[in-house]
């Protein structure tokens, strides 16, 4: 039964073989390539996290040595931030879905797209090498002069890895910005764009403007460490705090690289599963841009006790509160979208519910940290750790999973088990809260972060946290299991299993190599569910 049967050609089966994947210029395949690498990095980061949590079940340092512990949380942070969360949504889901959503055949620069995957992998390999050779122990923030002079771990190798991976992010951002400007299908005006595309556009802005600064900062660090050039060296009159300014000039906006795309996913999924247009479409769209731009004005809120001028701290505190407003606008609009919807409880929206609750707590605790008077006490305690895990794990990773579940049928043509997905979402939600809520209390009690041994009175809360992490780990593993299972045993999904609007659902699942047989012509907004009734009937 080989040649005579008409085979449905799609991007997965159009060609076989490793080479056809490694040399592909198809954005959809590149998305899958990213998914594979990011999954590996997530597993790795998760293993490091597990080791950290095991160590912290007792107040003594009895599981690993101090140096190992330091390497563990550093590598956990580096893997999760630079190799999971920054590429996760834009490079996997964005790559896969965005050209489809705007009705393009591909991104503007397919070769550069592939190149950026290679760059990413090379960066990852460097970082892996550093990890294998014994790790790096500076914290993911690489503060000088510890990183430039005192650390005896593989700072250079890791730095080079992160440096290289940064270019991947830049190239992705560049590619997406041009694609969104120049590749939209006829009729796809800016205000008909799905909100995910708006979010990616805002993200691209941050990637383009911010990432070069971290690149040069790491380069300066490398030159200082490797060649002995003094740039931040206090012995020459240099200022270690300048490194922090430059680092956070990128790394604060980078947290919006991590959260904006998941926010875009949330808008898509919420609209689809409540069968409604997103409430206040243009406000949600512009709040993405506002977050991207204002996000550049608040970096020194990480430096409130690092020796900056209190007047400057005041400005940055004010701006940090200001940047919370567009997030508030988004949150309220999502809530309002549910109002009088027809909410279809399927796996993707369950992850969205999780996102809403956890992002909310993460974001609101960000307000505590943005408050000068509180941050003096809270800085570098577990309160901060809890804050960013609530946003990054509870928010961004949940959002990523929402998107992964949402587009999985499109990517693979297969349906996963809805009941398993429901169970996983529940496990992750419960496990997550158990892991990280106690850390808020620990933080206010004054337990500093990056502590290998701690004072015995903190133990109970730490044990709770470790217990939660185990549940969390089970939850994530479950996701991996049923998604992989669906590849072999899943039902065929059909072109539009969720009955969603949006161009990506108008083509086959999995899509044909050139996305659309005919270039689509768009004549309505992104979420016209109310019109659909009339049409479908």
């Amino acid at each position, binding site marked *: 039964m080989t040649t005579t049967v008409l085979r449905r050609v799609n991007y997965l089966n159009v060609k076989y073989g490793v080479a056809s994947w490694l040399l592909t210029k198809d954005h959809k395949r590149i998305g899958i390539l990213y998914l594979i690498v990011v999954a590996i990095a997530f597993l790795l980061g998760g293993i490091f996290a597990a080791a950290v949590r095991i160590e912290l079940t007792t107040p003594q340092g009895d599981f690993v040595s101090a140096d190992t512990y330091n390497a563990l949380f550093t590598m956990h942070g580096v893997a999760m931030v630079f190799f999971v969360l920054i590429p996760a949504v834009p490079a996997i889901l964005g790559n896969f879905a965005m050209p489809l959503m705007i009705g393009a055949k591909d991104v503007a620069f397919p070769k550069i797209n592939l190149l950026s995957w290679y760059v990413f992998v090379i960066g990852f390999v460097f970082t892996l090498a550093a990890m294998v050779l014994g790790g790096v122990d500076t914290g993911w923030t690489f503060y000088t002069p510890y990183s430039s002079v005192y650390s005896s771990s593989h700072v250079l190798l890791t730095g080079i890895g992160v440096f290289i991976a940064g270019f991947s992010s830049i190239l992705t951002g560049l590619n997406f910005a041009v694609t969104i400007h120049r590749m939209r299908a006829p009729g796809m005006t800016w205000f008909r764009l799905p909100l995910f595309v708006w979010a990616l556009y805002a993200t691209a802005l941050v990637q383009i403007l911010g990432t070069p600064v971290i690149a040069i900062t790491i380069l300066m660090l490398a030159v200082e460490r490797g060649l002995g050039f003094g740039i931040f060296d206090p012995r020459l009159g240099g200022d270690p705090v300048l490194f922090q300014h430059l680092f956070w*000039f990128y790394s604060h906006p980078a947290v919006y690289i991590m959260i904006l795309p998941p926010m875009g996913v949330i808008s898509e999924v919420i609209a689809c599963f409540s069968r409604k247009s997103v409430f206040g479409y243009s406000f949600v769209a512009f709040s993405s841009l506002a977050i991207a731009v204002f996000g550049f004005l608040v970096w020194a809120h990480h*430096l409130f*006790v690092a020796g*900056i001028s*209190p007047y400057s*701290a005041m400005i*940055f505190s004010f701006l940090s509160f200001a940047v919370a407003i567009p997030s508030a606008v988004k949150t309220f609009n999502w809530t309002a979208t549910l109002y009088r919807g027809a909410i279809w409880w399927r796996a993707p929206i369950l992850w969205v519910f999780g996102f809403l609750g956890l992002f909310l707590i993460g974001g609101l605790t960000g307000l505590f940290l943005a408050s000068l008077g509180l941050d003096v006490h809270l800085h570098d305690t577990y309160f901060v750790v809890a804050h960013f895990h609530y946003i990054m794990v509870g928010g961004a990773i949940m959002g990523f999973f929402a998107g992964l579940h949402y587009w999985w049928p499109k990517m693979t043509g297969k349906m996963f088990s809805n009941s398993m997905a429901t169970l996983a979402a529940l496990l992750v939600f419960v496990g997550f809260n158990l892991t990280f809520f106690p850390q808020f209390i620990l933080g206010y009690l004054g337990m500093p972060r990056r502590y290998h041994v701690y004072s015995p009175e903190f133990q109970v809360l730490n044990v709770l946290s470790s217990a939660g992490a185990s549940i969390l780990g089970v939850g994530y593993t479950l996701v991996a299991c049923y998604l992989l299972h669906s590849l072999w045993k899943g039902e065929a999904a059909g072109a539009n299993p969720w009955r969603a609007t949006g161009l990506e659902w108008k083509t086959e699942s999995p899509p044909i190599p050139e996305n659309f047989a005919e270039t689509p012509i768009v004549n309505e907004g992104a979420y016209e569910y109310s019109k659909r009734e009339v049409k479908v009937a």
Partner: protein
Amino acid sequence: MSGHISPKTTYYAIFGSLMVLTATTVTAAFINLGSLNFPVALGIAILKATLVILFFMHLKYSSRLTKLICGTAFFFLVILFGLTLSDYLSRGWAAAPGGTAGAGTQVTVGPPAETAEEPAGEPQAAPEP
């Protein structure tokens, strides 16, 4: 494809202006303008860069989007410089009643000195013994 084609004379004229400006900035470097040294040098450099961008890089004839992008770059550069310096330049104000500043703050490290006279006869490139 129709890009704007400038007459050759435009290019030569721009080149000429750039040369004149280079000469100006070198000359200015040998005149002590006090606190104006830096602004003058920077001003001339900005002028030169603007000429290159507008004419050699055809920004003058490019789309609004391109102009916006070009402006964005410099806008964010100014944010980077401005907000960072907002810290460094206001550190000196931090002096608390006690003389030195309080939690998380230091007295500035750097001198605010703008004009300074060095002892005359500074040796050029001190050779290694």
